């Protein structure tokens, strides 16, 4: 846990990343979303590419070059995220193609490391880099940026960030950057089964893209009506959004270089502006949180993992 005295406003030089869109949005909606991000969102880096399901990829693939171009013109770094679960030959081919597409790639499955063979890359939060031993191995293998998995507490992220600064320079002749997940639903599980398909009595092969109906995930509740999480294809995500405003300044002070905002079906430009203003020391974390609540409707804000307790624990309203 962070000492309370460290959570006040303080200007940091940390960057903001817009993570990969984890949901299956229609092409039009995605196009509009990224156009607005390019023009208006104060983020330094934007991830494109499909992470959850290879069946979704063809819908948006051909849009990626034009959107990447627009983002680059707006001064943003573009990273291509890759699949979280790779099992078929077609998925392996997709990972290979992503690695050769000319972008910095985000690894979300070990197979991608094998394809990259030491080329510079980002290690995403679906990889299990929990400790300095794994981190050091990744850096030696070409990682230039590592996002710890959702289970790692703020204290653990700070430990990794401090360890990163002591490590040899990585593939891009700079210390590896640690990026902390700071906004959105956390991925809690990955499976071979598609639960969106199963919810409709279908299978992954016959899914009819059931996931498209839920742009922010399909809510699950217990039989006692307690929120459990949301289904998104083969993944289950947290029922609440993380909003790590309070941890940003102390984590930046520990050496965290970037904070990740994961796209949800809400005004992400406004979310990015709030996060930026907290990083700039222009807003107190508590007032940023108060301003966030009307933007996210009834979705609760969770921060349990950051505090080292059950992930579903919420920040009191």
């Amino acid at each position, binding site marked *: 846990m962070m000492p309370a005295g460290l959570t006040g406003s303080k200007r940091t030089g940390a960057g903001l990343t817009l993570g990969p869109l984890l949901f299956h949005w229609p092409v039009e909606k995605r196009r509009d979303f990224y156009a607005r991000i390019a023009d208006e969102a104060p983020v330094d880096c934007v991830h494109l590419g499909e992470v959850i399901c290879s069946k979704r990829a063809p819908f948006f693939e051909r849009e990626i070059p034009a959107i990447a171009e627009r983002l680059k013109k707006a001064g943003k770094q573009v990273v291509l995220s890759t699949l979280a679960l790779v099992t078929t030959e077609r998925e392996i081919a997709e990972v290979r193609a992503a690695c050769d597409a000319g972008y910095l790639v985000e690894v979300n499955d070990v197979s991608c*490391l094998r394809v990259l063979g030491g080329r510079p890359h980002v290690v995403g939060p679906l990889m299990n880099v929990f400790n300095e031993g794994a981190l050091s191995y990744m850096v030696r293998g070409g990682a230039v940026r590592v996002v710890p998995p959702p289970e790692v507490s703020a204290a653990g992220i700070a430990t990794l960030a401090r360890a990163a600064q002591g490590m040899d320079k990585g593939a891009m002749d700079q210390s590896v950057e640690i990026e902390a997940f700071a906004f959105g639903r956390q991925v809690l599980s990955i499976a071979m089964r598609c639960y969106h398909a199963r919810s409709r009595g279908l299978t992954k092969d016959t899914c009819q893209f059931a996931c498209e109906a839920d742009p922010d995930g399909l809510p699950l509740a217990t039989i006692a009506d307690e929120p459990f999480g949301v289904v998104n294809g083969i993944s289950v995500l947290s029922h609440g959004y993380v909003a790590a405003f309070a941890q940003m300044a102390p984590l930046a002070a520990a050496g965290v270089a970037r904070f990740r905002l994961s796209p949800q079906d809400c005004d992400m430009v406004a979310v990015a502006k709030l996060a930026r203003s907290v990083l700039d020391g222009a807003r107190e974390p508590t007032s940023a949180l108060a301003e966030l609540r009307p933007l996210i409707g009834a979705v609760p804000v969770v921060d349990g993992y950051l505090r080292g307790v059950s992930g579903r624990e919420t920040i009191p309203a």
Partner: protein
Amino acid sequence: MTKYLELVCPGGTPAAFRASVDAGADTVYCGFRDVTNARNYPGLNFDREEMAEAIDYAHQRGRHVLIAINTFPRAGEMGPWRQAVDDAASLGADAVILADIGVLDYAASRHPELRRHLSVQAGASNMLSLDFYRENFGISRAVLPRMFELREVASLVARMGVEAETFAFGSFGTMTEGRCILSSYLCGKSPSSDGACAPAECVTYAERDGEERVLLGGMTMNSFAPGEPASYPTPCKARLMVRGEPMYIFDEPEGLNAHDILPRLKEAGVTALKIEGRQRSRAYVTQVVRTFRAALDALAEGRPVPPADLVGITEGGKESLGAYRKGWR
């Protein structure tokens, strides 16, 4: 005992370990009594002295011992995992079962002579990942995730270049191993970081509207009518409300039993069969290991396989071929 497939059996306690050996295990897997192994439950596992005795017991009878060190160390806390690897080497374990890249790196560089198996917790789900672990950490065997159809197992085994171990019996989750934190989301403890999914300390029961509810971390996972057998509240076996209707959205509470497809696993080129259940009693272990020993011996000698009667001890009282069955996903 005639070798057909190597039978790898659980040794959750010193007593269960001996039961596995006595019932015909070729190999027993077990762990140290701490967070370094994925069955870190109270009353289980081995201190160093017990481990030395167990290894001695197995080796005297020509059996092998694998030590599972297959959780993911938290940042800044790698000491116990390094110590566990060092101790496994000095105690004479036949192999260690590892998942974390930092621990694999340590074991491969400090103890190159100690055989390394890739834990199912590493979730290696394709040839490239298996190649990565083989080339970088010199693994000799990989335990395959419980997510493949039989034909997919065969396709991987034919190409993977290291021995394949697959699950034959016991509990199984539907999520890719090592990539599920639902348990810690609900109750603060996970297989990856704590070596425990839905540990008993987080489970409670409550009576409501004439039904018994079973809760994990205070969250209702299921309810049962009086007399109905209650399943364990593992998050991926929860009965949840989906669009207003209760359903087993992830999986039904049932256990894996691959007894009927042993020849096909052998044909697929699998080296070793794993019986899950380090948290199980000595009696359970004895019954399951004897059943599989008899089947493997019969197959090795070309005799008919004796029927297995394990439904009574299978999770949820229901057995299944799990993902081996076409159409499971």
